[in-house]
């Protein structure tokens, strides 16, 4: 175990520095890069707290869509397997199972990368 501060706490401190003093001291293209770097620290801070849980849920959701056991599998190999099965085509049942599974997985990614992005679901514009 590393000593405090935790990864999450350190990333918060770096983000505060970037978005505070550094942002104020820069301008133009560099200021934009500093803003982006600050936001990346916020993303990584959330990832440090929630990433492991989100990965575990992703493995379960992918395995369920594929109809396989999740034990010993990782998200990357399961994603490859799902892409291969979808590419093969002609499996409407798989596509129907895959859609809600992928919606759940993407929600998990957005909770880290862009909280709130999933608040808009396009219902008003599907027709």
């Amino acid at each position, binding site marked *: 175990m590393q000593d405090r501060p935790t990864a999450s706490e350190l990333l918060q401190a770096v983000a505060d520095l970037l978005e505070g003093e550094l942002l104020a001291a820069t301008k133009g*293209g560099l200021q*934009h*890069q500093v803003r*982006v*770097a600050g*936001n*990346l620290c916020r*993303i990584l801070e959330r990832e440090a707290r929630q990433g492991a849980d989100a990965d575990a849920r992703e493995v379960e959701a*992918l395995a369920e869509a594929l109809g396989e056991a999740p034990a010993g599998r990782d998200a*990357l190999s399961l*994603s*490859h397997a*799902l*892409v291969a099965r*979808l*590419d093969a*085509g002609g499996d409407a049942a798989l*596509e*129907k199972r*895959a*859609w809600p599974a*992928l*919606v759940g*997985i*993407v*929600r998990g*990614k*957005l909770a880290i*990368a*862009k909280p709130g*992005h*999933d608040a*808009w*679901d*396009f219902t*008003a*514009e*599907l*027709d």
Partner: protein
Amino acid sequence: MNPVEQTRAGLAAFLAKEWDAAVEVESLSVASAGARRRNVLFDALRGGERVPLVATIIPSAAVQIMPIELEASHLRFAEAAGMPAPHVHAVCDDASWLGGPFFLTARVAGETIPRQILRLVEADASLGPRLARQCGDALAKLHAADPAGAHPRITRPAGDPIEATLRAVEALVRGLLQPSPAFTLALRALERMRPPPPARLAVVHGDFRNGNLIVGADGLRAALDWEICHIGDPMEDLGWLCQRMWRFRNDALEVGGFGARADLAAGYEAAGGRFDAARFRWWKAMGTLRWGLGLAGQAKAHLDGSVPSIVMAASGRRVAELEWDVLMLLRRSFA
């Protein structure tokens, strides 16, 4: 001489020759300096006359995707079609003046920054609907023009633009650094829902969206960035304009965060276009998928060292936004 002074001297010398008159260059500012192009704003003084201009310069180091006169020809084509586009004053492929080929266009006054445009719209309730309608009008005029009049080297699909787009996107999905089951699923749905080839091909802008528009209190003044203008399905432009990514958090206003689809379609049809809702939906979802693949491509360009940049790296973490959007847009395919 520093680079800005060199640009000033080069512009003054070029315009003196072009106009056969003494010319001074004032109020010069570099608006953007990307890897592929530099935009320099300036005033040219000829006698007592002040001409506000923009120089679009392709750095010689950059691989020139298309000859400079091609992009300028798209601007001229659009202007002749009646679409608001900056007037082209000069085109020059001699790199000795400004360090790269360039063209000069009229500098159109107004806002280009999306959030500033949305602020104008918030301050005037009539502007949003008018702007959406004007976008429809402008695109209909561009699309109505005979593509035979476009530059002979304009990018065109080998056959059906729907098929060409599906194949290009399929190659991008296969080339992803990391598998995206969401994009693969979206591609399956888009294959299934593919509309027939368009009744007619048109010159399409290719990147007509909030961010490439100049807007004033009166509405649309010009469409910018004609770099990827090509021959294609007219509905491609309308679908692209209505992607969520260009709404800048005003999600409920489908057209660039400032207007409703009904106003866009009304403007398009009043100017002689035919708004095809099914085709529009297909292109909107396809554009969303393409932009997601574009963001993944930016992350790849950072990681392989071709364009190392924190901004490009960050694009990789935006891919999930487009996965969400395209899954939602296509959800009826999986009901």
